[in-house]
């Protein structure tokens, strides 16, 4: 077995490259593209514009609970007129403290992004891909719910 190191190395390279190749072909889904009802939310401002509204107190809706790998969360959105005025997370449960910490940091950043973009179509926070996906998905559902009323 003189060729043993060579065979082992060739196998290692093959395994490494094929997994990497598989991963790259399955490009990581960008959250905006992944939210299936993104189109509906684009139409929502005009629809909301039909409802005559003064400076009313905010209306809010709660999105569904989203399970993600490291925990579960749901998102509540508050709109005043056509503007998203607040986004909050009433429920956040994670398996362990580090996930809790990562999720909390990400949620704060997502909230800021959403408030400035005025939609759920924002980029995921890198390092918190699952939290972002769950957050934005629950948020989108909440916005849809609000506009369906």
């Amino acid at each position, binding site marked *: *077995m003189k060729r043993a190191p060579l065979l*082992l190395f060739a*196998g290692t390279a093959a*395994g490494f*490259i094929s997994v990497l190749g598989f991963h790259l072909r399955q490009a990581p889904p960008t959250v905006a593209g992944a939210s299936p009802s993104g189109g509906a939310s684009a139409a929502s401002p005009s629809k909301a514009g039909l409802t005559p509204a003064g400076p009313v107190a905010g209306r809010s809706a709660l999105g569904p609970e989203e399970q993600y790998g490291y925990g579960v969360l749901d998102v509540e959105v508050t709109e005043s007129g056509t503007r998203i005025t607040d986004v909050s997370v009433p429920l956040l449960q994670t*398996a362990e403290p580090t996930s809790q910490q990562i999720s909390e940091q990400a949620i704060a950043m997502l909230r800021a992004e959403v408030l400035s973009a005025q939609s759920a179509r924002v980029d995921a926070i*890198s*390092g918190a*891909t699952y939290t972002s996906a769950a957050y934005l998905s629950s948020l989108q559902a909440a916005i849809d719910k609000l506009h369906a009323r």
Partner: protein
Amino acid sequence: MPTAAGAPKRQKGRAAPQGRRSPAPRPALAGAALVVAGIGLGATTALTITAESVGQLTATGGLATFVGNLTGMVGTYLALLMVLLVSRIPLVEQVVGQDGLLRWHRRLAPWPISLLLAHALLLVAGYAQAARSGPWHEVNTLLFSYPDVLIATIGLGLICLAGVVSIRAIRQRVRREVWWAVHLGMYLALAISFAHVIVLGPSFVGHPLTQLVWSVAWAATAGVVLAYRVGLPVLRSFRYRLRVAEVRPEGPGVVSVICRGQHLDRLAVSGGQFFFWRFLTRGMWWQAHPYSLSALPQPPFVRLTVKGVGDHSAALARLRPGTRVAIEGPYGIFTRHSQRRSRVLLIAAGIGVTAVRALLEDLPRSARPVVLLRATQRADLVLGTEIADLVKRRGGQLHELTGNRMAAVIDQYSLRRTVPDLKERDLYVCGPEAFVTGVVEVARSLGLPDEAIHHEAFAL
């Protein structure tokens, strides 16, 4: 190839048909197994890397966490490979031998142990940095609020223990049984650390495909171990139904155990191979020890010859006829399959003569064997007449070398004088480890290439 014609007049006139020979090794298959092992290693590494993002890496504690994940994954994979190495998959064992598998196992051992230790330490460091807390506080958090981490840590402790008792200096001081029990604990350690990988590992959380592949790999490893370390031996033991027929003294402290069984004409074994023998009697049933066959099977009989140096081997002299015997094997590549040249030199020291005796019987007549037996005193040259007979039939020469280690020494000078055509022969050497190492060195220095040197060492 020799057949019944070459059989010696052993066991007084019991001329019986010879059994089957073990199949020829297929090196290509072992090579393929090696490639598969490499693919797994590469895939494991890549899986860890693809689960990572730049953001995570640059976050506080991100680097330590990433390297911790990587060492954990690679360490676990290497631990699985170590288990597979000692599962003695026959197709691989026939190529590299039980000896070779154990050598790889030992060579690999420091890696998974240190990588898994690094995994634990780095993750504590990384998580502590991320949480801006102290390491001791973080250890506490990890152990008691993360799922399955506590039990995985116990597993790590067991793995380290197995590493510690295998360190040469310590291993020589612990009983074989302790060493064995600790190694058995490795299976438990790997089993209980499985959960935390799937539940917490960034490569697995939210990735059902990788979860599936990893789980299948673990289940398959467990299956291979069970099949080849438990299933096959049990099956063979039931099939051949060996019982002790006779215990015969051969020399000072040396006995031959002759077992009688069924279907032994179907037992595929080559001369020079060994079995793990388990004598099902009180006080012995729970341990299996490796002993070579000291002759090819002559159905319905097989014979092993043992020198009483330890508790187990000494107890063999007191075996009662009728005792049931369970076997695991055959193992080893100290066989005619390893022969590369037409002629051979066989060297045995002490009880190493048993493997050489059986191998001799299996060699073709054209091998014209030169046999060199070494012992401290003449009385220790057991099986001498059988060997002399076999050598004579093959037109070979027998040299007996007796005396203490200083007087009866095998060095470059004496070996060249005894075997002038050494460089055109295959060398087979069997005996205590120090002796085998010494002879192999001498042979190498005389210009014999590694592929012509075959050895089987036994530990006392």
